[in-house]
Structure formats: structure tokens, C-alpha cells
């Protein structure tokens, strides 16, 4: 059976890249004693699927991966076993059983929520509220995404589902994070700055992912663990 694990990534752990986080969890699962399933062959590996890779430097409260297991104890027990062996900066929030037939974590990702704050001394010269207003007023916000092979022009209006300011002046975003659309928060920020003929610097923002979403049959966005069942 498959379980879905939700975790956070904070502190110094934000400097650990996605591939190393995967390696970290492979070892952590071994330490935890969870009855994980392995592939066959000379170098057996755990059958796992990570949702949406988080870039180096970002923190998160809504990371997920799926794990194939032979047997389970209880959600609470498995969560505790994992948390007992976590490094400072990663916390397991939930361990839930997945229904028989469902897409794996990676294929399920439809959207991601972010909160973006400005590093001290790196605040923009213009009003960010006004910039968001401009963004919302436009029919189309084109963005040229450069990939290794070519350039693709996207309309951010189609893939930014929500944008606004929190009470303490942080920007919140809900964007397409599916493999087809995948919008990075920095792309949206570049579009906001472009209105004022400015380009944001590499270290202007602290970017925090708040949640990763799937789209259910009705088309509504729900957290990735919404289809899981406590054991």
C-alpha cells in the first residue's frame, strides 16, 4: 500500500537541494524502521515519489512524498518514528494512507501556495500593493520562460490563480505548479517589477511555500493530503 507523508523544511535545511533531500529521506526511512517496499535487483531502492521539488533557499510548510510500504502501524506511530530521526529543520506533519487508485504525488501536483517577504533593506522603491493592482487589472501578463533548449511565452494571468498582500505586507501567491505549467514565484515577482522597469535582485526575497495542491474531480484545488486517510 501507499502512504503520503507531509513535511516542512526550515532553517539550515533550506540549503539542501532536492536530490539531497530525497537521499536524506531514504536514509531517514531506514532509520525509522518503517516497513518500506523496495524494488528488486542488485541495488534495491525504495519506491517513493516526491511532489514538487523545492528550490535551494526556499522554506516550506507543505512538502509531500509518497512511499510504497508492505505494512503500516498507525499514522501517529509512523509520524513519531520519523520525527524521532529528523534533522533540525524538517518536521513530519502527517502520514496518511492513500486510496487504492490515485495518482502519485508528483503527478498529482496542480498548484502551490507561496508567501514572499522582502529581506531587510531589499524592499522595492515602488508600492508593492500598487504593483499587484496593476497585475490584477491587466488582461494578459506575458512572461518569457527560458529553458535549456528554447524560450516559451506564458501568460501569467492564466497560471497565477491568486495574488495579494497579507496583513503584515507579505505577498501571497497561488500558482500553477503542474508539470505542464510550473510557475516559479520569482517569475511573478519579475513581472511585478517589470511594470516599474526594474529587475529584482537574487537575494531580495524570502520565499516560503505554504502548501502544495491537487485538483479534485470537481476542479477544486485541495491540499495534497486531502485524499489521504488516517491509519
Amino acid at each position, binding site marked *: 500500500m501507499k502512504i503520503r507523508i507531509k513535511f516542512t523544511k526550515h532553517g539550515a535545511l533550506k540549503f539542501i537541494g532536492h536530490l539531497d533531500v530525497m*537521499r536524506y529521506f*531514504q536514509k531517514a526511512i531506514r532509520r525509522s524502521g518503517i516497513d518500506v517496499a523496495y524494488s528488486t535487483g542488485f541495488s534495491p531502492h525504495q519506491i517513493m515519489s516526491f511532489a514538487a521539488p523545492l528550490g*535551494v*533557499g526556499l522554506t516550506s510548510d507543505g512538502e509531500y512524498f509518497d512511499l510504497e510500504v508492505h505494512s503500516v502501524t498507525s499514522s501517529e506511530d509512523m509520524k513519531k518514528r520519523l520525527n524521532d530521526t529528523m534533522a533540525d529543520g524538517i518536521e513530519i506533519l502527517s502520514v496518511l494512507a492513500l486510496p487504492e487508485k490515485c495518482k502519485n504525488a508528483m503527478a498529482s501536483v496542480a498548484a502551490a501556495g507561496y508567501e514572499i517577504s522582502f529581506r531587510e533593506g531589499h524592499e522595492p522603491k515602488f508600492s508593492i500593493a500598487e504593483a499587484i493592482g496593476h497585475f490584477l487589472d491587466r488582461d494578459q501578463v506575458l512572461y518569457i520562460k527560458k529553458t535549456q533548449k528554447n524560450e516559451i511565452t506564458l501568460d501569467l494571468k492564466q497560471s497565477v490563480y491568486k495574488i495579494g498582500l497579507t496583513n503584515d505586507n507579505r505577498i501571497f501567491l497561488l500558482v500553477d505548479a503542474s508539470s505542464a505549467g510550473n510557475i516559479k514565484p520569482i517569475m511573478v515577482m519579475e513581472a511585478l517589477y517589470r511594470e516599474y522597469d526594474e529587475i529584482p535582485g537574487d537575494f531580495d526575497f524570502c520565499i516560503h511555500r505554504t502548501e502544495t495542491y491537487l485538483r479534485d474531480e470537481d476542479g477544486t484545488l485541495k491540499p495534497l493530503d486531502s485524499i489521504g486517510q488516517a491509519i
Partner: protein
Amino acid sequence: MRKLALPEEVLLTIEKPARYIGNEINSVIKDKNRVDIRFCMCFPDVYEIGMSHLGIQILYDMFNQWEDTWCERVYSPWMDADHILREKNIPLFALESQDPIKNFDFLGITIQYEMCYTNILQVLDLSNIPLVAAERTWDDPIVIGGGPCTYNPEPIADFFDLFYIGEGETQYRNLLDLYKEMRAKNATREEFLIEAGKLPGIYAPSFYVVTYQEDGTIADMQPTVPGLPKTILKEIVTDVSETYYPLKPVVPFIKCTQDRVVLEIQRGCIRGCRFCQAGQLYRPVRERNVDLLKKYAVAMLDNTGHEEISLSSLSSSDYSELPELVNFLIDECREKKVNISLPSLRIDAFSLDVMSKVQDIKKSSLTFAPEAGTQRLRNVINKGLTEPVILNGAIQAFEGGWTRVKLYFMLGLPTETNEDIRGIAELANKIAAAFFETVPKEKRREKVQIVVSTSFFIPKPFTPFQWATMYHKEDYIEKAYQTRQAISEQLNQRSIKYNWHEADVSVLEGVFARGDRKLGKVLLNAYKRGCYFDAWSEFYKHEEWLKAFEECNIDIDFYTTRERSLDEVFPWDFIDCGVTKEFLKKEWLRAHEESVTPNCKVQCNACGAARFGCGICFEERGTAE
């Protein structure tokens, strides 16, 4: 969140920030206000190399078991971080507390190879610790060196307050107790260093004076303070089953060279190859109890979550309980889905059977280290491997499905002739031919591939070859060229690939291996010219090194190509590693007679290591004639 020494902007711009943040699983955090001694362990190379070193893991675990001590780690910052630390004036820091190294009581540096000597200076420099020991005060940590290179500490003697000669498990407790006691009494730094120098295995270099002959060789070396020993006897763990072993080693976030559980099954080697320093330094052979090793293996796998385990020793096939241990691991690891890696196994029926169980034959290769191309030269170096044994092993392996064979040789060994170099090519050719004879055409699923690698032989202290002469760079290149030429003339040359090491670094390594105190100023000069990370070819600055030697008026040939007489006093003669100079001399002469000396299991050859009263020296076997 724990404070980090490097600002976020820096961590996000440098390569692999995980090298500098600490916080790894099983790393130890203590309250610095509740310990008496802060010890920082350093491996002066990049994190991924340093984290793979077992010795530091053992000592880290030992120190942290002591309530009064907090041991942390530091490695050489990679060039990108190095430049930023200098530019922004950020002092080098320990991974755990992220505190400056300068604030520590001790900085312990393990010295595993000569080409890291300048990285020691890099670490001291970035820590704002005076490079030269004589300029340090109580504001600086006690800088203590350990590891194989400290068996000839003289080239780096200027930079260390103390050296620990031998295995670290035995004297550190005494040293730390002495430190606490003398700090409490408000002793001077000098008073402490003198008292430390009286402890077994501890060498305090600043209280020794060396006098030289007219020809530049050593006349004498004497302590300048009464009570300090004239010779330092190495420290050794007599019972390796009753000592420290790290059951919870630190698990790095990033992939390191050694990304696995390392189980040290024994110390020392029975073989006595005449070029091998480790084979003499770590005598006598001491085996760990097999039941204990089984327990260790399970505990370490559980505590780290590593997906691979490796056995560590100089010659695993000589471990008497190897079949029992390996069979246990095969069963245990099958269940845990853990891979087993078995380096340094002799190729025979047993090892082939084991390897076929633990590896994918299609992906793995077999390794032989004949070290020399002819039987004559193999007798000179006392490498007990014969051609029939190699061919037999290869044939069995080909029958078992292997198609890839790696062969390791050394060029520039004492008494080497052109015929010995040709022998390398011919042996490789015979192995390839054995494949075509053994495996019928219809069964040859993959091409046979023989990879020949050569390194240049570098004479090391405390080996029978410590009297050997080296060659010039051009001669080494010529030898590699000859090898390549000879391989290209073989019938099966298409199946043979040849790799060789660079010659520049080999000459330099040779200088420092058998160097003396006069070399300290060359190291300092070279470091100031920007030479460090010399073990990394992309950073190795040969021209700058040559300038440093020239400016210091030091002749490289004195250390490399000069003939050393049998009665020359060597810079390392004041250290006693157990094996006597008389024995080494006898072995050097036997090498020239091309006679083989039996290994320690066959008979005792009275090398001197029996004085430690332990290990194989006290097992029943034959005696020297």
C-alpha cells in the same frame, strides 16, 4: 533557528552550501558553557573527502562520550568559500556551533597525505591563528597533528604545537586532563607544551633542536628541555575489540566519497610489501572480534540508514573470520536491502563466490594489484602475488561472467628495468588472452576490458624502501610513455586501456615524504604564492612551487634523486614505530637479493613490533631462521 556563520547571501551563491552548515544526523551539539574543553577536529581537504575519513569519526565519537569535552569538525573551505571568507573577513568556524576555530582549546588536524600540507596553512590562516607555532599565545588553540604523515612530522614541525604519534584512542584523555590541570594552575603555554611532550606518544617539536652535517643530512636531534624523550614511541591500541568505535557516525546531507557504513575489521597488515608505509606503521596485526563486528554492523546500519556497508582494513582477505563475517552480512543485508562493498579482497574462489552474491557481475570489475610487471620485481617489492595466481583468478572470474579487470602497477620501483615495464604490458596481454581462451565466442556477451593504471613509486619513511632514490619528472614521463608503447605493441592491445598519474605532484610528494625541517619555509613560501588544494590538479601550481624552492634555496634533488647511505640519520629516526631500522635495513638488502620474506602468519621475522605485546605477534606460527 541555529545561527550560521556564513550569511544567507553567501550560502546561496557558493557551491554545495551543505559543506558549511553542520546539523547533520548524529552530529553532536552540547552546551558550550557546560564543557571544559572544546576540541575541533580538522581534515584539511574538502568536506566530502574529510567526512569520509574513519579516524575522525572514531575520535569524534570518543571525545563526545566525555562529558567535559565537546568535539566539533572543520574542513578546508572549497576555493569559492575560501575567497569569500578572506574577502569578508569571516573567521573559519566549526560546523556544529558555527563558532570561530580561534575560540577553541584544541585544533586537531589529521594529516593523511603530503599534498594537503598547504591546506593546513589555509585552515590556520582562515582561522586567524598564527601559521608559525612559535608566534601563538593562549589566545590560540593548541594545534595538534595526527595521522600517518606525522611519522615524519619534520617538514610541518614549524606549524604544530604538538604531534600525536600513533593511534588516538589511548593518550587523549591524559592530554586533556593535563590541559585542564595546567590551565587551572595558570601555567604558561610553553609549560603546558613541555609537560604534554612528556606524555607517551606526544611530540612537542619546538623543544627539539636539529643539527646538520656539511652535506645537509642530519647530524643529531636532541630535546632542549630536560625530561623530554629523545625518541617517541608510537601509541597503539593493544585490544582493538575493547576500545572506542562510532556506532552513530555522522550522516552527511550531501553525497560524500564514503557514503556508507565503514566497518574496520582489523588494524595492520601481515604482508610486508616493501614499498608500503601502512604495512609497517600499523604493525602488529590486530583483529576485531567477529561477534562484536556483527553487532557493530547492525547498530551502525540502524543508526545511519546508510544503504551500503564496506569492510575496512589493509587486506581484508587476511582477516581470519572473514567467511563468517561476510556470510552474516550477506544474510543481514539481503533482509535490510543493503549493498555490501568488499574492497581489498584477494581474488580467489571464495571472494569470487562472495562477489557474485553481492554485486552485479555485469557492472562490476575485478581488481588486481600486482604492482610490478615481472616476477623478479615482484620479489624485490615482496608482493606475494604470482603470475599463475593472477591468471588463475582472472580465468575463474571470466568463467563466472566478469569481463572487466583492473590492474594496478607502480613505475619507478627500485631496480626497475625496461623489461619490468614491458612485463606490465605482457601481463595485461596474457589476461586478455586468457579471456579469449576461457570464454567461447558464442558466450562473449560483452567485450573484455583490461584497465591498466600506473602510479609513480614514492619512497616513504619506515619502509624498507626509505633508502631508495627517486627519478626526475622527465624520467617518470618516459616510463609512462614506455608503458603505453609496450601496451600498444601487444596482440590484444585493443582490449587494454592505460591510465597514468601525473609526474609533477609525485616528485613534490616525494620531497615532503622524506623531508626535514628545512622544508617548513618552502611550504610557507608556496602557500603565500597561492599554492593550496595541491591534491586537486585544477589548483596545482607547479611553477609557483618551483619558485618557492628556488627562493628558499632548497634543492629538490637532495630529497628525491640523492643516494642515501645505509647509515644516514633520517629526519624521522627519533620516532619509533615499533619496527626497527635494523629490520628495515635487512629488508632493503633482501630486496636487492630479490628474496621474498614470508608474511607474519607464516613466520615471525622479528621486525620489532612484538614489543607492543599484542596481536599476531603472540599467535602460534613459525619463527625466523
